[in-house]
């Protein structure tokens, strides 16, 4: 069954001048349709301004469709009475780690979501403990968020969402402000949650190396989905990806260049090991 269903979705940012007259209309999303199955790890790629964050905000009912519709676990996001159930079902992690931590102690921040849901005190403690354990931050439960690294802060933010027991997590560029180690940390945590707890993951990013383990990748440009497929399928189309102002991992580009020069390599090489193996095979022929 599908976790998220997006059908013919369009969204327009309308700018008005001081008198309330329409100044400009910016179509951020242009009739997108897609479905995400339960338990999937989905990545949405796109350059800045491609509409990927706007799409993410629709899943959490922060924005409402101008046209078309979005369903989370069968609930229409346009209906007001579904609002809180949707937000609990599809939790959202944002870009800036500082601006989404509310409390001055890690464990209290993780407890913020369950408190809002009216979960009984004892169960809050259980959930907080489980969630911090799941993201590997239990030992920091009494720390101040200000003392953590960027990657650790994002893991706390993820724990804060996990404590609400969502079926799906939407991560809106969670690594954009992190250093390479923080990025690895966060992506590893998210993959782990996807595998172990079977949480559906929708990862919005412009870092290509973060999506090579996804079940499916969508590439967006100008509010539309331009490419859709497994990472291997997507990464075998290097020229097309570059056209959408994106990049590929260095090793993928290298394999692609070699292939263009006539070397017989398989499509869409994603890791160093794959490339080394492929070259070994050719040399032993």
């Amino acid at each position, binding site marked *: 069954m599908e976790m998220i269903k997006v059908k013919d979705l369009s969204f327009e940012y309308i700018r008005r001048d001081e008198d309330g007259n329409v100044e400009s209309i910016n179509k951020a999303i242009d009739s997108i349709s897609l479905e995400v199955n339960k338990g999937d790890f989905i990545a949405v790629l796109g350059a800045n301004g491609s509409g990927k964050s706007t799409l993410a905000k629709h899943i959490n009912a*922060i924005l409402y469709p101008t046209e078309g519709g979005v369903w989370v676990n069968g609930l229409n996001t346009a209906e007001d009475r579904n609002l809180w159930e949707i937000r*609990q079902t599809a939790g959202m992690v944002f870009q800036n780690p500082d601006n989404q931590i509310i409390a*001055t102690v890690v464990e209290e921040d993780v*407890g913020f979501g369950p*408190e809002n849901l009216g979960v009984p005190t004892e169960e809050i403690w259980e959930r*907080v403990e489980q969630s911090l354990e799941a993201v590997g931050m239990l030992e920091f439960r009494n720390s101040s968020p*200000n003392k953590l690294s960027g990657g650790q802060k994002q893991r706390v933010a993820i724990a*804060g969402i996990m404590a609400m027991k969502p079926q799906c997590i939407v991560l809106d560029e969670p690594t954009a402000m992190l250093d390479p180690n923080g990025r690895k940390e966060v992506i590893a945590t998210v993959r782990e949650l996807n595998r172990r707890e079977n949480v559906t993951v929708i990862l919005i990013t412009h870092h290509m190396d973060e999506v090579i383990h996804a079940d499916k990748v969508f590439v967006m440009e100008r509010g539309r989905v331009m490419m859709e497929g497994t990472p291997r399928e997507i990464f075998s189309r290097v020229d097309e990806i570059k056209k959408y102002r994106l990049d590929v991992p260095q090793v993928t580009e290298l394999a692609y260049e070699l292939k263009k020069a006539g070397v017989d390599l398989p499509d869409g090489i994603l890791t160093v090991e794959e490339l080394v193996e492929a070259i070994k095979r050719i040399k032993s022929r």
Partner: protein
Amino acid sequence: MIRDITIGQYYPSNSVLHRLDPRVKLIGTFIFIVSLFMFNTLYGYIVVALFLGAVIKLSKVPFRFIARGMKAIVVLMLFMMFFNLFFTPGNTIFELWIIKVTDNGLRQAVFMGIRLIFLILGSSLMTFTTTPNQLTDGLEKIMRPLNHIKVPVHEISMMMSIALRFIPILLEETDKIMKAQMARGADFESGGVLKRAKSLIPLLVPLFVSAFRRANDLAMAMEARCYRGGDGRTKMKPLRYQGKDYAAYACVLVYFAAVIALGIFGDQLF
């Protein structure tokens, strides 16, 4: 410079005092402050000093940490002592030009100084042993009756705790923007009042822009985590009085009674 001030800072530990209900500490501190103005005898000062000493001992906050906080208020203290010393009428014991020191003045100055130290020690002991969040929780619960007269108690305490979370972040940001503008040749240090005020614009505008951006982000993140005001909310750390809290109240009351008794009958003891 701002970071050197330890008044109001939390000192992490696990003492009895740290584990008390914040309401006990808030009310206790209030009673303590009131008690400071209930007596005027030497015995009173001894009782307060003993009580304060015992509480400091219980708090397990190192004396050096407390003393460092006191440094910041030395100026204020000298100021108060100065006024008491020179402007209290009484029998002159020392005179130089227009400066006159009286016996009453001297006594007032010393006792006022000691009282001020007591006051600040007592109230900073509360902040040393209570996290800002506990404080706001305690205030929220104490103020809850005000809800009936339409005071948004929950909202106020939520705002306070968010402010506490973002103060260090904004301080750091101020420092960063200041350095960035200095790298562009900005000068925050020289010139008259007007020039200095004007030189703050390149600092304040980006700071406000950033604060608004953060507020916006935070509001969105709170809503995404199903925040919808205080109704129907449960608490992860609800405030419930326990045995030690009642015991603490009892101690405070005994202390208060002792101070009042000394205030009334103290003179006869001398």
